[in-house]
């Protein structure tokens, strides 16, 4: 039983790492940060956040030869 729980925990962490690597959880992280730092302001919507992030990320050198 404990072994199963270990495996489930490991899979959960691997899935979390994969999502973070791909940038899937960027919005969730932003929400957490926003709630901590600016609790009174309204955060961006998921769509708006994604649009701005893409624009920012592609305004510099992001890929190599």
């Amino acid at each position, binding site marked *: 039983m404990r072994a199963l729980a270990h495996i489930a925990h490991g899979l959960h962490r691997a899935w979390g790492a994969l999502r973070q690597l791909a940038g899937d959880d960027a919005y969730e992280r932003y929400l957490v940060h*926003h709630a901590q730092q600016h609790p009174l302001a309204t955060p961006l919507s998921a769509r708006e956040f994604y649009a701005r992030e893409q624009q920012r990320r592609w305004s510099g050198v992001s*890929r190599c030869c």
Partner: protein
Amino acid sequence: MRNKLIGVLLAVVGAFALGGIALQRHEPINALWIVTAAVCIYLLGYRVYAAWIASRVLEVDPTRATPAERLNNGRDFVPTHRAIVFGHHFAAIAGPGPLVGPTLAAQFGYLPGTLWILVGAVFGGCVQDMTILLLSTRRDGRSLGQMARDEFGPVGGFAALIGTLLIMVILSAVLGLVVVNVMKHSPWATATVMATIPAAIIVGLYLRVWRPGRVLEGTVLGVLLIMLALLGGGWLDHQVQLRGLFDYSGVTLAALIIGYGFCAAILPVWLLLAPRDYLSTFLKLGVVILLAIAIVITHPQIKMPAVTQFVDGTGPLFGGKVFPFVFITIACGAISGFHSLIASGTSPKLISNERDVRLVGYGSMALESFVAIMALIAATLLDPGVFFAINAGAGVVGATPEAAVHTIASWGFPVTVAQMQQLATAMGEQTLFARTGGAPSLAVGMASIFGSTFGQGLLALWYHFAIMFEAVFLLATLDAGTRVGRFMVQDLLGRIYEPLGRTSWYPSVLLSSALIVAAWGYFLYIGVIDPNGGVNILWPLFGISNQMLAAIALSIATGILVKSGRGRYVLVTLVPLAWLALVTTTAAWQKITSPDVRIGLFAAADDLAAKLAAGALPPERAALAPQLIFNQRLDGYLALLFTAILWFVILDMARICLRRWRGLPLPPSSEAAHRPTRLEAVLAGEAR
């Protein structure tokens, strides 16, 4: 104690493998020797040299708060686990360079390339990446150009900007040329590569409109779509009426790629650029892992000799002796200046603790270098005759298959027309003669490895999978390079007329995109019409420019070490810098002054001009000659310019060092003030 044991074990196994390579010089060796030696050398470099540099030279301070912690904004400045930063950084530095360069350098045999990749990475490339990463982390993630400006003055910064812009142009042109050579008269490859564009757009819409930010879902969808495209291309290849629609000449393909590059530069990033990049990153990681597994399972014999007679400078892929040209041809994979732009861009804003720079900077580059080793293996496991038949331009070996096999066999590498035809049929292609650029022969090598691991019957599918992977990858870099080049042009134009510097003003966007695309489009077009394949001129030029950027980065690192009173460790960056300066200057010197028409650009131009004047050229060559002559001279001046920028920055660095030693005033250090980190405590609290 345990660490020491592992170190000794690595040294013994590595030495044994290297000894194996050295002692089997006259019989075919197994690729596993090379893989084993490489892995041991990287691990030793990482455990011993990188650890020493991090603690003594860079004075990495785990108690110091990084910009990710101090400036955390939940977006680009985010403290991130080192494994994730490693993944991001590797995905960003991993490009098509380490696949193409080692393939071309295989004309010298497997040994020169292998040694340079290993030594260059451990003492050069990895050190550069790690050092720049730490310097930028200490400076709030500032870019290389900004660091040059802050630490040396405005002149050094401007030189870095011009150097980077020129690299973008040459890089985009040479990548476009490789793609053209891959797709030329190959309906299967062309249709598949074309289909990746709508596939990327569908993914872009998915991520923007239907499921914002769900990158994993979007990527899985995209990969399924391009696999369908791959199979569809194979089906289409057998349809007599349809295949003609995708059968293009080199010039037409060049025009299509130029048009595509322009569209990619002006379209919103979410529509094409970003989804394409997700797909190419996913494919790259997948292929690297597959290739590593397949090489270990099949452990093929290397058929190329350790050293070929072409070290004397008569090589069919490109002219020039093994020194300095192997060091120019393999830039990415050994030391790549381009990486310093990534190491001073996104990654330093994610590092949560300074000690992570060893894994992220040194470790990512070691892995990238390993990719170069695998590409070299894939190229050298082919029969040398086949390798040269695929990679030598028609201008070198002769235009007909019979002439080509005759020339190649006369070098001592037997190959027959029937053998090449059989190979082409197995790969689902019309012909594999003179498919220059490195990508087709790499695809043949990869297909034969994959084929013998995962199913021999699917050779044609594996070949076109490899082709599609390379093309997607090359085009993703070409897109991104064009876009960055556009921003740089806008930056420069904005100094002349302010509105042109606004990145969202549409007339400026169109003008600057047109300028940058025209610049690389010109070199691409000339490369396509060049009867010698074009890559033989453009790739060395790209190598020189990339090494020039590496020398700029190492100069900045050296200058900062001296300025900050760590001059006694200066050899760590000064030795690779001196080597690059020597190699780059020698190569550029030979490209400019050599009387050999296969090396010297001006000699080649003069030779062609003389032949044209004497009427010694066939009419179709005579029509192209004026453009080729102009281009060879232009390339000669470019090589001169690269060398001038290189020495300019080195002298600027020497000036800073002299001022320091004489005790004269210097620009102040731009390092951010030390603040103790609180992150570890916070993370430890979370873990409990």
